[in-house]
């Protein structure tokens, strides 16, 4: 700590000149509330040196990959608008699963079952569609009754954990299954999400209340869910998603007007939130970012957003039928990103998730219901997994017995880690998963367009993940050295 102290003293005098608001806390030693942009940049650089890397390596990596593939791909397919839109749609499902996993990773646990859990949710949804709303007929009586018993079990477990929302949504799943409903894509998606809740309640109970290691619990459930998917779909079968709404989730686009409305809402909302916070923090004399930096951030988001929206509203079709507009997956991912970030940053629950991941004993002594928090993150992860399943099934157009199996989960974990979420818990943000998901989608898409065999794609993806994990470990070591 000795090294940064000297600049801090200098910072005080500069800060007092810069911000009179800081004077109300003048008796509080060398506390600083406002900094100039230069100081903020210097502090950021110092943070980088001491291991606070955040999402920076992933962002730089993404930029490098985009440039690399654009130059290597002589056909010009990679940087084409069609491919970029396609890339977004391909990566969205897995990215959403990764966003849910961030909650679990933040508490220092892992959910290996998120992949097959997502497959199970998709399978139930698809089965409902294919069997024309007759799940009892589609599943067969035995499987149907067993499935209902699992849901009832999940309701009981959620009540024991006092996760009321989990119990309510599980009960909704039970209701939807027992009462039945005619094939309706919206209700089917709701059912898939509720199935995700059911799965999450079971995982959460086993990990948090029973106290088994999450690795073992979710490994066992990973295999079990795979079996149930197989039982639902049948060996070698596939369930087609022939429904205009379900098909549009990942393949449809907003209209041109809709795209611009999305831009105005998203960029305007971002600017309003940031500027409002800045003004009120300055007024109250609280710790605030330098105003210049905030303006640059807002400006960058508005300009980049406008350019992206403009490009995506151009016709990108190679054929005669025009394809225009921002893909639906963009508002879906954005909504989940905003909601997840809000929950983690601004709510009591989110604060407690970080605390449990940072120091579980401290959280317990602070009176936090650690069991409930640890169980809740698994419910959230499974819900995100179910939403991700809806998106990737929609992209593929069908659900097969392998849905969510294989690499789905590991790619999702990889996305979260590449983006800068720590596997040791306590550090990470939802946006990490989005950036990491974009990196992985770019690698896969780019190498595919360069006509590289699957073998190369796997090896490169693995190496990217290895690189990201080593950055995590190294930055932790740096901050451990610099911390005391």
């Amino acid at each position, binding site marked *: 700590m000795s090294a940064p102290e000297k600049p801090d003293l200098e910072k005080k005098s500069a800060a007092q000149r810069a911000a009179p608001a800081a004077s109300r806390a003048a*008796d509080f030693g*060398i506390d600083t509330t406002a900094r100039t942009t230069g100081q903020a940049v210097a502090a950021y650089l110092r943070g980088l040196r001491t291991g606070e890397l955040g999402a920076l390596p992933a962002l730089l990596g993404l930029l490098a990959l985009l440039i690399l593939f654009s130059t290597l791909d002589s056909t010009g397919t990679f940087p084409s608008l069609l491919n970029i839109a396609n890339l977004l749609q391909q990566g969205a499902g897995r990215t959403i699963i990764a966003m849910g996993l961030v909650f679990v990773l933040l508490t220092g646990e892992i959910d290996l079952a998120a992949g097959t859990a997502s497959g199970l949710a998709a399978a139930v949804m698809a089965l409902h569609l294919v069997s024309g709303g007759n799940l009892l007929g589609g599943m067969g009586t035995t499987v149907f009754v067993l499935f209902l018993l699992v849901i009832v079990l999940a309701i009981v477990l959620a009540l024991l954990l006092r996760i009321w929302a989990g119990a309510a949504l599980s009960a909704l799943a039970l209701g939807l299954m027992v009462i039945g409903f005619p094939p309706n894509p919206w209700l089917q998606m709701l059912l898939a999400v509720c199935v995700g809740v059911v799965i999450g309640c079971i995982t959460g109970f086993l990990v948090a209340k029973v106290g088994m290691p999450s690795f073992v619990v979710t490994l066992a459930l990973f295999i079990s869910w795979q079996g149930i998917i197989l039982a639902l779909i049948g060996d070698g079968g596939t369930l087609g998603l022939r429904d205009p709404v379900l098909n549009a989730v990942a393949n449809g686009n907003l209209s041109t007007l809709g795209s611009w409305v999305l831009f105005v809402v998203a960029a305007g909302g971002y600017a309003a939130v940031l500027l409002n916070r800045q003004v009120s923090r300055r007024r109250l004399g609280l*710790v605030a970012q330098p105003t210049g930096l905030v303006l640059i951030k807002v400006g960058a988001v508005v300009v980049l957003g406008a350019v992206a929206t403009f490009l995506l509203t151009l016709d990108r079709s190679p054929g005669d039928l025009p394809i225009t507009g921002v893909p639906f997956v963009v508002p879906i991912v954005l909504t989940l990103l905003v909601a997840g970030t809000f929950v983690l940053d601004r709510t009591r629950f989110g*604060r407690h998730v970080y605390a449990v991941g940072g120091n579980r004993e401290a959280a317990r002594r602070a009176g936090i219901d650690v069991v409930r928090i640890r169980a809740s993150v698994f419910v959230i992860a499974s819900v995100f997994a179910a939403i991700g399943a809806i998106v990737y099934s929609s992209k593929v157009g069908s659900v097969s017995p392998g849905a969510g199996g294989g690499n789905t989960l590991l790619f999702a974990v990889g996305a979260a880690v590449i983006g800068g979420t720590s596997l040791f818990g*306590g550090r990470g943000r939802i946006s990490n998963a989005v950036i990491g998901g974009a990196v992985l989608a770019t690698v896969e898409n780019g190498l595919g367009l360069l006509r590289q065999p699957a073998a190369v794609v796997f090896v490169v993806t693995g190496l990217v993940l290895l690189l990201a994990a080593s950055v995590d470990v190294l930055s932790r070591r740096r901050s451990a050295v610099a911390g005391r």
Partner: protein
Amino acid sequence: MSEPILQLRGVNKSFGAVQVLHDVDFTVRAGEVTALVGDNGAGKSTLVKCVAGIHPTDSGEVIFDGAPVSVTAPADAAKLGIEVVYQDLALADNLDIVQNMFLGRERGKPWLLDEADMEQAARDTLASLSVRTVTSVRMPVAALSGGQRQTVAIAKAVLWDSKVVLLDEPTAALGVAQTRQVLDLVRRLAEQGLGVVLISHNMADVFEVSDRIACLYLGRMVAQVPTKDVTHGQVVELITAGRSGDLGLQRPEAVTV
């Protein structure tokens, strides 16, 4: 001499077959620093954890502000105004100072925390304790030195209009200058009218800041005396042998764990 704010009468506590506390009587007075001393394994930390509600007691009475109370969970103790600063610092490294100070008791709505209010309250508390070593209340705790962490942990305890603060070896891992800071802080807490309990192995610290010394020997409270009435050597004898002249147990050799 002020009225006792916290009194323990005949407290017993066993872990399985091992009885850690035997009929312990203990008194904490407002505006005074009571040092709790004893050898390793004498039961100091267990006593603190019983008061804090982390371990429920097997039997005995806890009297707070003149009324008997039952403390069975950390939340009960917090409600009464009893705060504990642990030896292993119960801070979350990844959270900043404000977040740590309000952990478990965040202000604002559950779905929208009032960050501005919390930040101001944290700053005011640190200022009232004349803490001048922290550059920003939004610094992550991981970036603080040992003394700064201890300061934050103590400030966290004071934030809650607490009446009794128990400090479990607050200076054990600190250097000379940082120990100085923390001891000053301990004294200031007492001057603000709080009942302060200081657990320490360091006799110099104990004699410097405490008004009263309570000594545990193998789970028994052998003496609770004003600091000015005893000498350094007497306290060491009480700690190691359970007896010093007229003070302490009459037959310490008969005592077993």
